[in-house]
């Protein structure tokens, strides 16, 4: 069985993103195939590379990137949701003629078609948030 995860809630100010991280980590650890993790709505903020959480707090931003490397995850950020919220990568920054980029390179930036594809190809979609 393959699963994909849809995250809607922001990191830090909401529990959902951390719960999603723990869920994905546990799924991977148990040998479960995770086809895609899709970040939508305020969840896109998890992809920032500029967050500086205090040292005695859990660093969810780095944790997602580490988990991606450990488990070869497909972490996809919705391009429209991200651009609206001021989260852009280098190429989007050039395209919109902005002064900088703030998205960590471990996240792929793509459209809602990736979510639709995940719905079609995964046996289960697990949503965190809303």
């Amino acid at each position, binding site marked *: 069985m393959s699963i994909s995860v849809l995250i809607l809630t922001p990191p830090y100010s909401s529990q959902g993103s951390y719960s999603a991280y723990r869920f994905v980590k546990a799924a991977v650890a148990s040998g479960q195939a995770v086809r895609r993790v899709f970040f*939508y709505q305020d969840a896109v903020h998890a992809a920032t590379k500029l967050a500086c959480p205090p040292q005695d707090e859990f660093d969810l931003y780095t944790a997602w990137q580490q988990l991606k490397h450990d488990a070869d995850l497909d972490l996809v950020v919705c391009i*429209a*949701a991200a651009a609206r919220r001021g989260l852009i990568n280098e190429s989007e920054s050039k395209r919109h003629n902005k002064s900088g980029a703030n998205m960590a390179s471990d996240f792929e930036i793509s459209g809602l*078609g990736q*979510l639709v594809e995940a*719905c079609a190809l995964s046996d289960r979609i697990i*949503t965190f948030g*809303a």
Partner: protein
Amino acid sequence: MSILIVQHSPPYGNSNAKEALDIALAAGTFEQEVHILFMGDACYQLAENQNPHMLGQKSIPKMLTALPIYGIEEVLIDRASLDERSINTLCKDVKVKVLSSDEVKAAYRNAKTVLRF
């Protein structure tokens, strides 16, 4: 093999209505079978005589009128939610199918994926 998008949020005040609708349009673009069900305060998305420009927002009903272009001919709405809110008339530009609670259950059962906003 279909996607059911359950709208549970009012039209304005947060981005749920718009961002849930965007998924429906994307699914339609990729020729997936997709249904939109309005429940709870989301019924107000289909209310008549909205003036969202006063809030600096785009009209949700106007966006909903584009659905047939994406292969979504009608939207679903929960009768109990309408009754609880004494909503008697809906925006006439959107084709709506009113569902009984049994039909709502069936809509959930028949969907492969349910996304709730």
